[in-house]
């Protein structure tokens, strides 16, 4: 069962269960099949690999955040990937964000605090569009949930850059990506082997970097996931127990009724 990715196929899967496999599930409109990576958060009890998520945050901070906002995240949320309060304060303080107006009514900038929203790279959509060849870089808070295929799709885009085939007409200023629908993407290849330097000695090849940043983004899109699954296990165990008890009582009560 997939926990995170999203799912038009899922809907027809439900119908398909009833149809007893009479009809094929719809094909996702994708010429290249999605990669099937293993994710720490995949399984029923899967959690986020916090070290990977922290490395992913490093990539987001150093690379992605130059163009992509994450407007639904606050620095305080980083406790969810295992950062200590002191670390969060330091991370926030290193970033300059708008802090409203000063006493004279002039816009004021200053270091962020843990309660600040992640710094947005552009003040507004128009600025973002004009700086990026006409395309607004999407906010990444929910990107994993907002794409068919979820983490595998985002991983596929990050690792899907290759030279355009000879017969492919690539528009000016666009890049060829085998995973992106239509294969022409405004984003230049963001990650390559060695784009970031990991302090924990993890190999910094493209595959590892993409893996780490997708882990971070998956957490960002579903920060409640670990708590949710843990609660789910307890709730369902309780309900199974209740079902057993209730059924036993039902049998007891009905025992004097003759069928």
């Amino acid at each position, binding site marked *: 069962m997939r926990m995170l990715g999203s*799912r038009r196929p899922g809907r027809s899967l*439900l119908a398909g269960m009833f149809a007893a496999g009479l009809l094929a599930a719809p094909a996702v409109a994708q010429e290249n099949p999605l990669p099937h990576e293993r994710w720490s958060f995949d399984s029923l009890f899967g959690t986020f690999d916090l070290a990977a998520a922290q490395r992913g945050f490093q990539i987001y901070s150093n690379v992605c955040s130059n163009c992509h906002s994450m407007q639904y995240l606050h620095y305080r949320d980083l406790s969810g990937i295992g950062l200590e309060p002191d670390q969060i304060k330091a991370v926030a303080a290193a970033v300059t964000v708008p802090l409203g107006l000063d006493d004279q009514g002039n816009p004021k900038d200053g270091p962020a605090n843990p309660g600040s929203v992640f710094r947005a790279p552009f003040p507004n959509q128009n600025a973002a569009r004009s700086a990026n060849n006409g395309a607004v870089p999407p906010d990444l808070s*929910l990107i994993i949930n907002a794409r068919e295929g979820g983490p595998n799709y985002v991983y596929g885009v990050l690792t899907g850059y290759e030279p355009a085939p000879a017969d492919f007409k690539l528009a000016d200023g666009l890049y060829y990506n085998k995973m992106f629908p239509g294969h022409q993407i405004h984003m230049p290849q963001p990650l390559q082997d060695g784009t970031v330097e990991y302090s924990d000695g993890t190999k910094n090849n493209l595959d590892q970097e993409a893996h780490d940043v997708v882990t971070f983004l998956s957490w960002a899109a579903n920060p409640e996931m670990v708590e*949710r699954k843990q*609660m*789910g296990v307890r709730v369902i165990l309780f*309900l*199974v127990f209740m079902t057993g008890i209730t*059924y036993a009582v039902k049998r007891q009560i009905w025992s004097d009724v003759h*069928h």
Partner: protein
Amino acid sequence: MVGMTKSTFANPVINWIDTRLPIFTMMQKEYGVFPTPKNFNYFWNFGALAMVNLVIMIITGIFLAMNYQPNSELAFGSIQHIMRDVNFGWLIRYVHQNGASMFFIVTYIHIFRGLYYGSYKNPRELLWILGVVILILMMATAFMGYVLPWGQMSYWGATVITNLFSAFPIVGPKIVTLLWGGFSVDNPTLNRFFSLHYLLPFVLVAVIFLHVAALHITGSNNPLGIDVKSPQDTLPFHPYYTIKDSVGICVFLIVLSALVFFAPNFLGDANNFIPANPLQTPADIVPEWYFLPFYAVLRSVPNKLLGVCMMFGSLIVLFVLPWLDTSRVRSARFRPIYRQLIFLWVAAVIVLGICGAHKPEGIWVILSRVATLYYFLHFLVVMPVLGKLERPLPLPESISNPVLGGRGGGPLPGGAPAKPMEKA
């Protein structure tokens, strides 16, 4: 004293209240000793399940409304606020979101139960009609609720569905403007949908009250579809059916929990995680899964007005079902041909659901047309004609008789003497 109840409750406080407002006597009569056919199977759980589901939806909905902003600039962000910052907001929202799907699963099974066992027939026609009203109100409520997160699919779904009304001549465009509160889906649309989404569930409660009131006049149907003949055929509702419904409620909660905790977005659409953008149409506009069969009926007709009429017709035909079915035998157990064809109808609905999820091209157009044809044929031709032609199996004498015979439902061996009941 005139009109005062003679309460039989021993507790003085309850007795005092009951004498002046006999709610305890009423509850005792309607849910305590209420005579209920003894042969219900688990299909008879689903009415109670739908009731429980509605209560869950109303409670979670009230808490969501405390934190939601019905404003096109703020709505999407306020959902994320609920998911991330409100204490257990994610739980409340996921229960509400998946509760909607469960509500339809439960209600569709409840409706199938009614169709299979002929619960819509004399004397329960009005009960059935109220049920169809409930279904339509539920659909309207669910549709408007899906718009509130103001994601791409919310916005474009609202645009497509409200635009359907424009197919009606003369009044159509006026209706659409009225629904929108302007000339496109925008903030006024969101405001009025939020208001109505909060209102309609309480209208639902009222209609469900009438539905249940009507049920308590006619009494429940049962898997044999024959009338209750004697007290031996029934059991008091409590404790027999309160406990049986409780078993169903536990199982229902397990299924709901599995969705909420382990696959909360399984039935959703990725596009609704993108904020509404009036300038960018998603590649594929698909309604929620529970509307897919009706969406497929709509798209199976090349003419817009006719398609809209067929779509609404697929619901409206249910109103006259009690008079379209000419067979006087209720339960499909005793109707060998109907018993097959009702499953053909179910298959048609499922095929329509699958067609609704696909772009209307190639095989899907043909399939949805065939299925739509049978959907209507079943109600408009098969049911009236079959009622006249079909030779039903012999009906059992009473509910307690075949129940004594072991395997319920089959034709009884002729003249088998009824064993005396041990429990009257």
